[in-house]
C-alpha cells in the first residue's frame, strides 16, 4: 500500500509497508548539472556506540556483552569476541572439543541466518517479482503460495537455531564461548536429536539451491546485469585456500581474480585496510590500503566467500561452487543478485559441516579450556553470514578493556552498497521522479547484501528507507519514504 503527500516544495511520497532489511537506511541520489546520476549515497545516520560501551568492562565479559549489538547475528559477535579474547588470555590453540563446539555453533548460525535471508527477506522478491505489490512480497505470502519453500524456511532456520542452543546454551545470545575455550560439550541427547534431522536438512538446503538455480536460468539477463559492477573481494580462507567460515587468514582478490594479498593474519588487518570516515554516515568506509580509496573498496559476504576460496571441503557445496564459478568462465562472479546463489552454496556447506561435526566424538570431550600468559591486545576475524567481521580490543593490567574496534560485514560492504544503488539509479532513473520501480529496485539491490544496519551502525529503533533525489547543488527534488 502506498500513500502520496504533495507539498509546495519538494515532493514527498510516503510508502508502506516496511522494507525488508535488518535495520534501516536512507539513500540519496544526486544528479549532475546535465541531469545525470552523479553519485548515490547509502546513509547510516544513527549511532549505537558499543565500541564505547565495552570500555572499562572486564575482558571475559565482552563475548557476552558485545553480542547484544544485534538480535540477528549475535553468535558471530559472541564467537569473534571470544576468539579475540583467546588471544588476550594467551591462548593460541584451543582444545579440540572447544574448537569444534565453536565451529558447530558457527555453522548453525550461518545456516539459520542465511536461511532467514534467502527465505524471509529475499525470496518474496525472487518468487513474486521485484515490482510485485509490497503487500504480496513477504514471507507470509510465500508460505501461502509456495508451501514447500515455506517448509524449508521454517525447518532449516529452526534447525540452525537448535544447533546454536545445543552448543551455545541459548538460541539467541549464547553463553558458552569463553576466553580460552568453551564451558560445556555437546550432550549425547542433543547430538542424537540433531543427527536424526541432519540428512533431511541437507536435502532441503540442496533443494532450495536447485530451486534458485531455476530462477537464475529463467532470468539470465536480469541476474547478470541487475545492479552489476566489478569489484575486489575479501574473505577468510583456510591454509590451502579452501573455504573456512570460522577461522583462517585473509585473502583479497581483484575483479579478474588476481591476488591482491593472501594468507594475511587477521592480527595484521591494519597493515592492509584503512577505515575512512565520511561526514554523512556513521558507517565507516574501509578500503585496501595498497590500492587507495578510489580502487581499494571491496565486497564481502557469501559472494566473496565463494569467489575467494579455491575449494570447499564438503562434496555437495564443492559441486555447487564449481557450477557457480563456471557462470563467469572461472573469474569471480560479479552479479549483485549472485549473492543469493552464493548464499545458498554456503547454506549447503554449513549443513554438510554440521553433519560432519555431529559424527566427531571430540564434541563429547571433557578437555574444554586452555590457558596461557595474558596479553594486552586481542584481534580476531570470522566469516559472519554477511561477511568478514573483525574484532579488536586492548586490555589493561586490571583486565579491563581500554579500547575496541569492530569492522562488521556491512561496514566492509559500505562502498559496494553505494555502487549498487548508483547502478540502479543510472539504469532506472527517468527524469526527475522517484518511481515505484526505482524504489523497489534500490531495495532489492541493498537487500542482496543482507545488510544488518543496526549492527553496522549500532543503531537502535526503527528507521525507514528514505530515498531522496537531489540537484547538483544539493537541493532536494523528490523524496520517497518506506516505513
Amino acid at each position, binding site marked *: 500500500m502506498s500513500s502520496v503527500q504533495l507539498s509546495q516544495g519538494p515532493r514527498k511520497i510516503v510508502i508502506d*509497508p*516496511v522494507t*525488508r532489511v*535488518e535495520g534501516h537506511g536512507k539513500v540519496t541520489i544526486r544528479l549532475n548539472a546535465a541531469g545525470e546520476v552523479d553519485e548515490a549515497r547509502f546513509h547510516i545516520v544513527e549511532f549505537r556506540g558499543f565500541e564505547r560501551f565495552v570500555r572499562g568492562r572486564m575482558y571475559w565479559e565482552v563475548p557476552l556483552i558485545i553480542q*547484544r549489538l544485534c*538480535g*540477528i547475528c549475535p553468535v558471530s559477535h559472541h564467537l569473534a569476541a571470544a576468539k579475540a579474547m583467546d588471544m588476550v588470555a594467551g591462548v593460541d590453540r584451543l582444545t579440540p572439543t572447544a574448537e569444534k563446539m565453536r565451529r558447530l555453533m558457527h555453522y548453525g548460525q550461518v545456516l539459520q541466518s542465511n536461511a*532467514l535471508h534467502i527465505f*524471509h*527477506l529475499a525470496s518474496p522478491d525472487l518468487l513474486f517479482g521485484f515490482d510485485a505489490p509490497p*503487500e504480496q512480497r*513477504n*514471507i*507470509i*505470502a510465500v*508460505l*501461502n503460495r509456495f*508451501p514447500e519453500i*515455506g*517448509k524449508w*524456511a*521454517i*525447518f532449516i*532456520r*529452526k534447525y540452525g*537455531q*537448535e544447533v546454536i542452543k*545445543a552448543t551455545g546454551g541459548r*538460541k*539467541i545470545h549464547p553463553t558458552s564461548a569463553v576466553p580460552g575455550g568453551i564451558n560445556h560439550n555437546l550432550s549425547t541427547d*542433543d547430538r542424537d*536429536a*540433531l543427527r*536424526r*534431522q541432519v540428512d*533431511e536438512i541437507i536435502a532441503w538446503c540442496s533443494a532450495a539451491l536447485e530451486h534458485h538455480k531455476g530462477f537464475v536460468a529463467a532470468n539470465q539477463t536480469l541476474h547478470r546485469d541487475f545492479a552489476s559492477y566489478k569489484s575486489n573481494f575479501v574473505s577468510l580462507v583456510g591454509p590451502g585456500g579452501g573455504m573456512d567460515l570460522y577461522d583462517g587468514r585473509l585473502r583479497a582478490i581483484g575483479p579478474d581474480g588476481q591476488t591482491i594479498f593472501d594468507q594475511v593474519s587477521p592480527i595484521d588487518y591494519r597493515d592492509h585496510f584503512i577505515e575512512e570516515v565520511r561526514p554523512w554516515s556513521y558507517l565507516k568506509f574501509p578500503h585496501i590500503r595498497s590500492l587507495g580509496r578510489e580502487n581499494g573498496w571491496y565486497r564481502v559476504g557469501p559472494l566473496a566467500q565463494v569467489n575467494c576460496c579455491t575449494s570447499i571441503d564438503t562434496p555437495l557445496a564443492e559441486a555447487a561452487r564449481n557450477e557457480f564459478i563456471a557462470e563467469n568462465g572461472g573469474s569471480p562472479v560479479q552479479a549483485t543478485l549472485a549473492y543469493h546463489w552464493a548464499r545458498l552454496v554456503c547454506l549447503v556447506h554449513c549443513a554438510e559441516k554440521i553433519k560432519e561435526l555431529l559424527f566427531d566424538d571430540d564434541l563429547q570431550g571433557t578437555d574444554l579450556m586452555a590457558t596461557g600468559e595474558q596479553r594486552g591486545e586481542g584481534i580476531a576475524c570470522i566469516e559472519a553470514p554477511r561477511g568478514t567481521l573483525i574484532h579488536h580490543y586492548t586490555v589493561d593490567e586490571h583486565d579491563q578493556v581500554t579500547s575496541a574496534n569492530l569492522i562488521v560485514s556491512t561496514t566492509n560492504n559500505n562502498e559496494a552498497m553505494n555502487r549498487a544503488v548508483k547502478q540502479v539509479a543510472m539504469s532506472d532513473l527517468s527524469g526527475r521522479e522517484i518511481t515505484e520501480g526505482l524504489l523497489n529496485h534500490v531495495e532489492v539491490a541493498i537487500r542482496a547484501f543482507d545488510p544488518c544496519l543496526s549492527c553496522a551502525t549500532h543503531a537502535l529503533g*526503527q528507521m525507514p528507507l528514505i530515498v531522496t533525489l537531489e540537484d547538483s547543488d544539493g537541493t532536494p527534488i523528490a523524496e520517497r519514504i518506506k516505513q
Partner: protein
Amino acid sequence: MTGLAIANTPVAVPLAIRSPRILVIGYGNPGRQDDGLGPAAAAEIKAAGWPSVTTCDNYQLVIEDAVEVAAHDVVWFVDAARDGDAPCAIQRLSPALDITFTSHLLKPEALLAIADQQFGRVPEAHLVSIRGYEFDFLEALSDRARNNLALAVTLMRRRIGYLLKVSR
C-alpha cells in the same frame, strides 16, 4: 527439541485420555526493563514443574515458533503491555494472517495461522498482556510491573492447574 515429524504426523491421541500439552511462550527483551515481563512469566511457570507444560522465551516471536505451537493443545502467549489494564489482560486468540510481518514483528495470531496452514493444527490460544511501566535500558522489572507479574502468574497457574486437573 522438536522433531521434524510434526510436519507430517499431527497429534492423534484424543485429549480425553491424556493431559493436554500446554505451551507458555514469554516474549520480550529483559534488557529493556518491563519489556522482560513475558520471559519472566515463562520462568515463573516453568518453576511450577508441571510435566506437560513446556515453557520458552525469546526476544520476539518468530515463524519457526509455529512448529512448537502446532505441537501443543493449549498455548499461552505472554507479552508486556505499554498500556491497558493492570495487572494484565487476557485475550482469546484466533488465527489471522498479518501481511505487515517484518523480521522484527510477528503477531501471535499470525503464528496461529501459520501453524494451521503449515501443519493443519490450531491450538487453543490466549494472549496474556501484563502491564509494564518502565522500558529503559536496564535489566530489572519496575516494582509495579513485578506486582503485576505476580498477580498474572497466579492467575495463569490457576487456569493451567485447573485444566490439568479436569483432564485427569
